[in-house]
């Protein structure tokens, strides 16, 4: 429970994973309230896959801890039943058909909605009786999503589910997902480096960059608390806002800031920003990350 009394579906504290001497994920502290559809964004190699695999228990943390639905990811049937995971590239048995996958799921899970899943795939015109290896990428993703949903998990973790899909299949996949989460208690974390795709279905965002969580909040809160300020040249930051990114010209400064208290100064021209602007500002235009909220990107950039 957090202060607001909302149940946290996912909570990590200082979570880290090291492979050899490199940290794939470091000091990651995120909280996702129950029922949110969270966009996990960040550049390639930011640790998105590692975070998801730690949450589902396919990897063990090197530091910190993760709680999913209040307990650490573990090898127990209760835990596995409550979490759905769709790995990158949607792994399926190539020689088996979609129908056989649904049968297998029924044998491997106590809770399994075979009828619902079958009807969904039929509605999407996914052939149920052909080996998975002969299906298109979009159809495979739909089968994999169907399998992940059929066990009715409380938390669904999707790793780059739309990365390999064409725009049409991408749209179909995301509307399938939107249907599945509508009205439910299902919490979803959906990773992608294509923020644009996620804005339609997500109401929460986690930004990973340079192996760390830079941002984790509801999207409307993020948009509320980030503004673009334009005013006389200045590096000032302080009690009222943190500068995420600054662009200076001879006479004026353009800042993307995180507001901490109501803006009183009238020296600034304040305007709203889009989620993509915020995310790119944290990542830095070149995909690298500004070292911290107060650091400034050099003049005349």
């Amino acid at each position, binding site marked *: 429970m957090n202060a607001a009394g909302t149940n946290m579906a996912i909570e990590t504290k200082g979570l880290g994973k090291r492979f050899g001497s490199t940290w794939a994920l470091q000091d990651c502290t995120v909280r996702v309230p129950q029922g949110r559809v969270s966009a996990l964004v960040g550049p390639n190699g930011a640790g998105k896959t590692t975070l998801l695999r730690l949450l589902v228990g396919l*990897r063990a943390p090197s530091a910190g801890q993760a709680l999913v639905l209040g307990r650490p990811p573990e090898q127990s*049937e209760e835990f*596995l039943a409550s979490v759905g995971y769709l790995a990158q590239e949607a792994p399926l048995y190539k020689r088996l058909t979609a129908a*056989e996958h649904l049968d297998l799921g029924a044998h*491997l*899970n106590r*809770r399994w909605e075979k009828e619902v899943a079958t009807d969904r795939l039929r509605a999407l015109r996914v052939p149920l009786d052909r080996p998975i290896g002969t299906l298109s990428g979009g159809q495979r993703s739909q089968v994999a999503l169907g*399998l992940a949903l059929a066990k009715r998990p409380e938390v669904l973790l999707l790793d780059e589910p739309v990365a390999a899909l064409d725009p049409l299949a991408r749209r179909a996949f995301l509307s399938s997902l939107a249907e599945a989460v509508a009205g439910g208690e299902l919490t979803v974390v959906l990773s992608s480096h294509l923020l644009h795709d996620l804005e339609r279905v997500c109401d929460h965002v986690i930004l990973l960059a340079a192996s760390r969580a830079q941002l984790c909040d509801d999207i409307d809160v993020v948009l509320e608390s980030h503004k673009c300020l334009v005013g006389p040249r200045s590096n000032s930051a302080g009690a009222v806002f943190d500068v995420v990114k600054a662009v200076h010209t001879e006479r004026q400064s353009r800042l993307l800031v995180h507001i901490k208290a109501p803006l009183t100064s009238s020296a600034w021209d304040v305007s709203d920003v889009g989620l993509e602007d915020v995310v790119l500002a944290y990542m830095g235009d070149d995909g690298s990350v500004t070292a911290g909220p107060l650091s400034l990107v050099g003049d005349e950039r």
Partner: protein
Amino acid sequence: MNQLIWRLHRQQVLFATAALVVLAVVLAVTGTTMAVHYHSALRDCAATRSCTNLPDELFQGDGFIIDLVSATVIVPLLFGLFWGAPLVAKELEEGTQDLVWVQGVTRRRWMTSNVSWTLIAAVLWGAAMSALVSWWRGPEDILKGGRFGVSFDITGLVPVAYTVFAVALGIAAGTLIKRALPAMATTLAGFALARAVVGLWLRPRYFSPLRQLFPLVNGVSGAPSGAWVLSLVVVGPGGQIYDPLSPAGIPTACHAAFFNNSAVSCLAAHGFRRLVTYQPAGRYWGFQGIEAGIFLALAAGFVSIAYLAVSRRDA
């Protein structure tokens, strides 16, 4: 779980069944013919009292079948290569562990079901093959020097133990190496190494061999029938080993005998005897039991390693 395993591996099972059926048919047909020949030949030779040629008469024209039966020595390895090594490695190679390990079945249970079914199948196939081969080779083993030769590795308990070992080794290699082809190569090398070390170095040491002196008779080894002869030397009256290349040990009285083919009887007359070091035929089951035990213990070790590797939380 069981349905998944069957669905994923039924091709391998059907293939192995087909191979076993073919072997069974070939051995049943030739074995029955052989048994008929054997019994009628026994009757004939008992009547005419000339049984010495029996072995040669009996196996004329069966060279290919004999080779086929001897070749079953590699069947346990095939199970290791095609059932053991890909079991976990193929899942890891194709990424399907990310699908199956996040269903409502713990990894430990997944592993238990997979490993048990594969081992059960290995025992069944190994036992069926061994039973067929043991039955087929029965007459030959009686007539031609017992079950410690080629027969030892393809009859009795050890084919079952070898199969279980090969499968366990394959599973462990696949789990640790995570790719099927290198795992198969490792299984091949590991199996050959284990069989060579145990067969050549360890096996003669299971029981201390018997040493016995036999009279020196031309053309007769003296070793008891069906025994595993480890060494066979001629010793002089003082127990010194006779070296056929050094004339020093030969009594002068016998020097001339070497030129008229009566050396053996001359040496025998001067107190030379044959010293045979051997494992008697009756120890066959003892040897089988110990060797099977060794390979089953190794198999248990490899299964544990595979278990630990899969239960490790980094997949």
